[in-house]
Every structure is written in C-alpha cells, then in structure tokens.
C-alpha cells in the first residue's frame, strides 16, 4: 500500500482488549476553555474513544482527525485525543479540523501518559522530544479496553473502518 520506506517500531507493552486502561489527569481542551479532567470522569459517563496522535501540525495528526471526522466516529462516541501539543495548539487543531463541537484534546507535553500506556515514541532528529505513538483505544465505563490499535510502524495509521465498527459494536 505504501511505496516509501517505513520504520518498524519496537514492540510495545500497551493495554490490550480486556485490560483496564490507566487513568490519568491532564488539561482537557474544549471549545471555550481547558481544565484538568481525569479520563475516568469521562468514562464514568459512558464509552470513550481515546486517540493518541503525533504533535498538532504534523500531517498524521491532520489525517487522523480528518478521517475520524469523515467516518462519523467522533459524532457517535465521546472522543478525546492526546498529544504533546499545548492547549493553544489544540484550540487551533480543533478549529481547523472542524471538530470543536465533537472532540476534546488532552495536552500532555511531557508524554507522561504515553509512558503509562507503553506507547512512548522518542522522535529521531528532535533531541529530547518524546511523543505518543499513534494509538486508538475504545474504553467502556470501567476503562476496560474494548478495542485497541497501536502503531507498529512509523508512520502508521489506524484502520478507520475497523475503528468505526468497534464503535458501532461497543459504544
């Protein structure tokens, strides 16, 4: 499918279907403000699609959100993203992708959440910068993982049909 070289990423020890996803608290950016919100506060209200993506402005971030939007996923389940970008950049991404009414984004500049999920991605050529490996988790009300996808190559993208099917089935 791709005609350029992709890099294999090392195996990751991420939560699998049936595992409980780690809880975390970070600033969650919505259309009007950001505030500290625990993931468990969101899952307490129902299933949550948790999307880890490269820093805002990188083309994979743009593609992932365009596709999740166009597949109607973000309108069917509470959807939150996580990247190392600042709240200010998140505001821009939400507006530019036209998803400010359906998606909120966690800001995790030090990628501490990536550590908890076993999906750290130290960036080649950007010394000292670690971000989140692209990953998608569908969580139920107890943060039990219903569906998990984690990039095994760089770059790598989720199978949006598969994500949509998982949301259809579980959320």
């Amino acid at each position, binding site marked *: 499918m791709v005609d350029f070289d992709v890099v294999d990423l090392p195996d990751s020890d991420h939560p699998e279907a049936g595992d409980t996803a780690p809880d975390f*608290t970070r*600033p969650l950016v919505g259309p*009007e*403000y*950001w*505030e500290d919100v*625990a993931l468990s*506060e969101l899952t307490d209200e129902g299933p949550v699609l948790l999307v880890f993506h490269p820093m805002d402005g990188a083309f994979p971030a743009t593609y992932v959100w365009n596709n999740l939007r166009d597949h109607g996923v973000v309108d069917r389940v509470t959807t939150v993203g996580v990247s190392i970008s600042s*709240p200010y950049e998140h505001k821009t991404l939400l507006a530019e992708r036209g998803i400010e009414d359906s998606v909120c984004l966690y800001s995790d500049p030090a990628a501490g959440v990536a550590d908890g999920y076993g999906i750290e991605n130290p960036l080649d050529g950007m010394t000292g910068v670690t971000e989140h490996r692209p990953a998608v988790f569908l969580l139920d009300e107890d943060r039990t993982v219903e569906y998990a996808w984690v990039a095994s190559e760089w770059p790598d993208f989720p199978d949006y049909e598969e994500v949509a099917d998982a949301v259809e089935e579980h959320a």
Partner: protein
Amino acid sequence: MTVDEPAITLYRLQACPFCERVVHVLDELDIAYESRFVEPMHSDRNVVKRISGKRTVPAIVDDETGVTMSESANIVDYLRDTYGDGSGAAEGGAA
C-alpha cells in the same frame, strides 16, 4: 480518582497577574478550586461572558454560595469575608 468537585471554579488567563492574585488568596485561605483557562483574545471569551456578564478575568463561580463575581479586588474581598477568619480587609456586615 473520585475527588469531589471543588465548589469554586476560577476562570483565568495564563500568566494574568490579577488571576494570580486571586490564586494567591485561594491558596492562602486553603480553599479548593478548579481552574478553567480561557483565551487570550478578549472577544473569544464567550464562556466568561455567559457566566459573569463580562469577558474579563479573573471570574469565579462559587457553587457553595451561588455567587458569581469578576474583578480581582472584589473577588479577594469576597473570599476573605466568606472564607477568611473574619479579619478580612473589606468592611463586613454581610450575614
């Protein structure tokens, strides 16, 4: 994490000295609060306008007392009167 939501919500702008002044007093009086950071662009602060009638920060909402308030000097007086030890700077008189 099943911590009860603090009664006080502080709408603030990052690095705004007037907001920091309120934070200082909240901390001094050991009052739990939740921070909501808003836009630097005044015209984009519709959420603050909705709750307080103005777009200025800081603004607080106190669910305990039902009070919503802007202007750091007013907020500081209110916090000291309501949660202080009674020796607040403002004249008392409020029940």
